[in-house]
């Protein structure tokens, strides 16, 4: 049990996928201008990342490893994730239209989200068991959501601040992201 708590804390804070591993920066800057969109994006990522983490683990351990084709990992994962997102989109549209409408445009955007791909690869590299891969995927996604929502709140305030001309918008966002990233380094000693 302790193992899992450590895993969760390390995935959410210590190895935060955005602020410690620097994966998924495009949606991090693209969708953090408004709190509303940030929340939508976070939910979509949590949803897709858990599914993708589990399915890629299965594909890797039950197909690529027995066939000795582990070097095809990258291309196989991309194919699987892209199909998965498409599948989820169709499924939601039919079965849970409300959730589909809620996630809106963010669902298809995740097809090309490197945070999702990165988390799946980390699961494999660290040789997690199936349960661990599931928990880790969920925690990575929560970490992504946490960082994104924190950052969106921050950017809404930056909008009201007097920022020198050359630093406005994305520049100041990058600076702020760097500083948050530094503060996340403080979690390093924890685990």
């Amino acid at each position, binding site marked *: 049990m302790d193992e899992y708590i450590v895993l969760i804390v390390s995935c959410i804070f210590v190895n935060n996928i955005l602020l410690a591993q620097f994966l998924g920066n495009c949606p991090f800057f693209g969708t953090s201008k408004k709190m509303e969109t940030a929340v939508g994006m976070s939910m979509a990522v949590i949803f897709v990342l858990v599914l993708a983490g589990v399915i890629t683990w299965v594909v890797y351990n039950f*197909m690529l490893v027995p066939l000795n*084709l582990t070097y095809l990992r990258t291309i196989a994962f991309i194919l699987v994730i892209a199909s998965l997102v498409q599948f989820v989109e169709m499924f939601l549209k039919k079965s849970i239209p409300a959730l589909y409408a809620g996630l809106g445009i963010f669902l298809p955007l995740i097809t090309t989200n490197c945070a999702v791909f990165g988390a799946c690869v980390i699961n494999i590299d660290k040789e997690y068991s199936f349960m661990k891969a599931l928990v880790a995927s969920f925690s990575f996604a929560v970490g992504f959501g946490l960082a994104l929502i924190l950052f969106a709140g921050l950017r809404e305030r930056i909008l009201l601040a007097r920022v020198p001309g050359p630093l406005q918008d994305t520049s100041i966002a990058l600076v702020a992201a760097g500083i948050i990233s530094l503060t996340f380094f403080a979690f390093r000693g924890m685990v």
Partner: protein
Amino acid sequence: MFEAILAMLGLGAACGSILGIASRVFYVYEDPRIAEVESLLSGANCGGCGYTGCSAAAAAAVSGSAPPSVCVVAGFETAMEVGQLLGVDVGSAEPRLSFNECDGGHRAADKYYYIGVNSCKALTAMYGGKRECSIGCLGQGDCVKACSFDAIHMGPDGYPVVDGNKCVGCGACETACPKDILHVQTTSDRLLHFNRDIDALSPCAQTCPAEIDIARYITQIREGDYEGAVQTIRERNPLLLTCGRVCPHPCESYCRRGIEEDPVSINQLKRFVADLEMNSGRRYPIKCAPNTGKRIAVIGGGPAGLSCAFFLRRLGHDVTIFEMMPKLGGMVRYGIPEYRLPKETLQWEIDGILNLGIECITNVKLGEDFDIQSLADARFDAIFLGVGAWKDYSLRVDGEDLKGCFTGIDFLSRFATHQQGDGGTDIPIGRRCAVIGGGNTAIDCVRTLIRLGAEEVSIIYRRTRNEMPANEVEIVAAEEEGVKFAFLAAPVQVIGDENGHVKQLEYLKMELGEPDASGRRRPVPIEGSETLVDIDMLVTAIGQGPDVSFRDKEKDLEALNITRWNTIDADNEETLQSSIPYIFSAGDAFTGASLVIEAIGGGRRAARSIHQYLSGDEIKPVDHSLYKRHIPESLFEQVDGLQNSERAKMPELPVAERIKTFEEVDLVLSEETARKESKRCLNCCRLCYNQDAA
């Protein structure tokens, strides 16, 4: 190698077939037109339209919740194509533009000194902003930052200026503004707007029954933009030539300059631009929304009917006017004499309205030549009832139907019909004429009689000059022209000679008693004060009401409620919908005899309700309505920072000349005088105004 290729092919095939099956299993019917519309849109996924991406916008356009012009980037041609594809009229493709309501800016007083971040949103969080005015522009430029099209810049006076050529009407500025100052509107939206207590309004614009944006058009005159001024007036009032001549301008009583000295001559300025257009030989273009295909019958071609027809036409509906007299204009044509409003001028104005594509059928009377059922058979979708108040009240004394006795409206309209060469016979004019009544109709009668050569004309009124409801200028003009006034006199009987012709009028002298419901002191007769005057012609003009006899001639109209004053009843005086849902009413037929400008305002109000009715919306009054109210904070006790200036004097024909003809008495201001007068306007808003330069 071979294995790898095989594995990838297998994985691909597996994914593909799962997706293929899923697309069957999870198939959701989607209108194929959505994809077609999406292919027409820009594909920029910019979100400028307010939808998440182009596909969402396309879905909204197909479902009808967004207009064909939903895409703010693509422009008019795309809107046309989308409209064609969906088979809908691009009616709603009227261009949307951002309008800034506030031109206070730096002029407005501040509550506190602010050195925080330059954002309106942040500033609003501190006691609603630094301005004393609760609704005014804060001037930090959130709208400028919000605009992706570089169409707004912060003007030198501290409020944003919109560049109409660059604005695409995306609404980003409206969303960004925390003060509700910027409004993205179509022309139709502007025509349908009524004063609200949260608007930036000057006291005069709050007072005007037609809600003309007075401060704006006077500013346009000051800047020399005469066409703009005419357009501003036309957003509220299609009869500017008429009102510029006959309106008693209630607005001027609320003019802020009028608190300290003479008010701005608002109506003269209106007349100045209106005459300028007429004399320029060119009609300024009037924008109409694309056709909606809905048909409305307007019964009564008076000011209310013309106004209602004008605004409905501008909203894109088909309008037909039914008029009982030979020509359009109603009481304005047949009740107001030539010397106050030349018929040629009126005709020019009416022609301009009809030119928009309004049909009219004259010489037909409701209840005689057609009825409501025949209109329903002719497939009209809604009916506007603006039949006016043409029935004179009778004096109810003995002998009032003797030869030589007339009633006011009957006399004026019969005379006007004959004067305009539309048939009828000449009315024999007496030598000694008496007119009973103290309203504008009575004054019109005496001034007409003088011009017709009556030797002695007197007004008999049961109260005093102070209580006369007629316009002050009219009373003065009548006095100048030599009319005699007998005040505190109540007729008791009319005495005829042996031929049945009027010979004498007997009246009782009165004194003023307690104030009555109207606030005027009630006249009380003095016992034994009977007086006789010799007359040979009598006109009674003691008021008039609507003629609702058409109601008795049609069974279906029993459901049409009328009030005890014979006016048409409506559940709500702001929606003007009668007890029969498709019938609307305004003007004198609804209010009882009242001002032209009141009828024009009512006509537009009815047009709004009819438009709601035809669009299938709920018919409801305006939110935050300012109907017949003022914003308390905008009414001042005193006004600081004014320099005395002289009000423009209205040029008029000399008395000796004018009593011989029906030539127009009041003349128009010269351009120089008008410009000078326009500078007297303080361009007021709720709280702030331009102080005079010291």
